[in-house]
């Protein structure tokens, strides 16, 4: 399989968020700021890369009947590891993401890639797939985080862009804003990008 295709699939054509609607919980929950979105995206990418690699390496040793529990253990191990490292070196981000770090385990995107890609394809391709899907996920989180942060608090990545005079629409950084922003962005994605691909 062509590596370029895998990359393109992960980031655009099968974008985990805008096309496949996978892993919606963290997508909606942590995108109050672009920084949190980026942190969550990269943490998920690291887990995806790790789990895809290990599962591709182990696929011949795991009996198919206990495939899913084994995958879950591998994924949970990487999630816990990333959580510990973040707690040690990026404590602010760790606190901001809170419960959604352990919940990376049940992000359907990761188990989905393990089941549909890593358990069938060679290790190299699985690694590329993990990184691409992870980056596609990160891209969506950062875009959503940036839009919500800009409208909701007048800044992006914590940089004040719109100044004091801008009446920040706080609702956008609150829960309803997550649904509204993602709904509008998905519609926009449908209009702009899908048309071009077709």
């Amino acid at each position: 399989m062509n590596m370029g295709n895998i990359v393109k699939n992960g980031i655009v054509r099968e974008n985990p968020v805008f096309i496949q609607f996978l892993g919606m919980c963290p997508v909606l929950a942590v995108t109050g700021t672009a920084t949190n979105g980026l942190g969550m995206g990269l943490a998920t990418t690291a887990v995806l890369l790790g789990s895809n690699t290990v599962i591709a390496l182990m696929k011949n040793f795991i009996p198919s009947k206990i495939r899913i529990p084994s995958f879950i253990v591998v994924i949970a191990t990487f999630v816990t590891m990333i959580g510990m490292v973040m707690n040690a070196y990026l404590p602010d981000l760790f606190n901001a993401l809170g419960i959604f770090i352990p919940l990376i385990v049940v992000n359907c995107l990761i188990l989905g890639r393990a089941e549909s890609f890593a358990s069938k394809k060679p290790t190299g391709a699985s690694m590329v797939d993990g990184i691409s899907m992870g980056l596609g996920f990160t891209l969506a989180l950062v875009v959503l985080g940036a839009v919500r942060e800009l409208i909701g608090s007048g800044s992006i990545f914590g940089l004040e862009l719109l100044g004091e005079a801008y009446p920040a629409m706080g609702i956008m950084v609150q829960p309803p804003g997550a649904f509204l922003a993602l709904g509008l962005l998905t519609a926009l994605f449908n209009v702009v990008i899908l048309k071009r691909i077709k």
Partner: protein
Amino acid sequence: MLDLSVSSLFAILVSAILVNNFVLSRFLGICPFLGVSKQVETAFGMGMAVTFVMSLASIITFVVQNYILDPLGLQYMQTIMFILVIASLVQFVEMVIQKTSPALYQSLGVFLPLITTNCAVLGLTILNIQENYNIVETIVHAIGAAVGFSLAIVLFAAIREKLEIANVPQPFKGFPIALLTAGLMSLAFLGFSGLV
């Protein structure tokens, strides 16, 4: 010591159902919320299946945390243990229901495998530990979370049934309009904040 005052239990219950609704304000369980909400009947089935698993999972993880992980100092195994408990519980419940009540299996069976990756269940069990709930509070919190989840998904399904026949602009068809609807529901639930 067990704190069993009715008012604090009631606060936990109301908070989990309305103020911090698992789906609409904590964003837990979004996948089934968006995926299994096209018809009120299936949404209700999913709600019942989740209620069942949530209550059992909360009790078992409470025991695992307090009598296995904490005494052994293995808190870092929490995520792995909890997800394994939930996965085996789901499998077990599926087997039991299939053997004892084919009718119930007909209605709930299809949802059960989906529940393992429902982050509302794992999220609930982790929150129980984080909030330091005792066993009674844990059960009340589980019931509140499950009722909150069922309430949100059934209401949402009822709206989506009507949306099916509405004339929606092409780019908004499917997920975008569903998300916007969920946003308006979440806005309505925001009105409960400050209640507890």
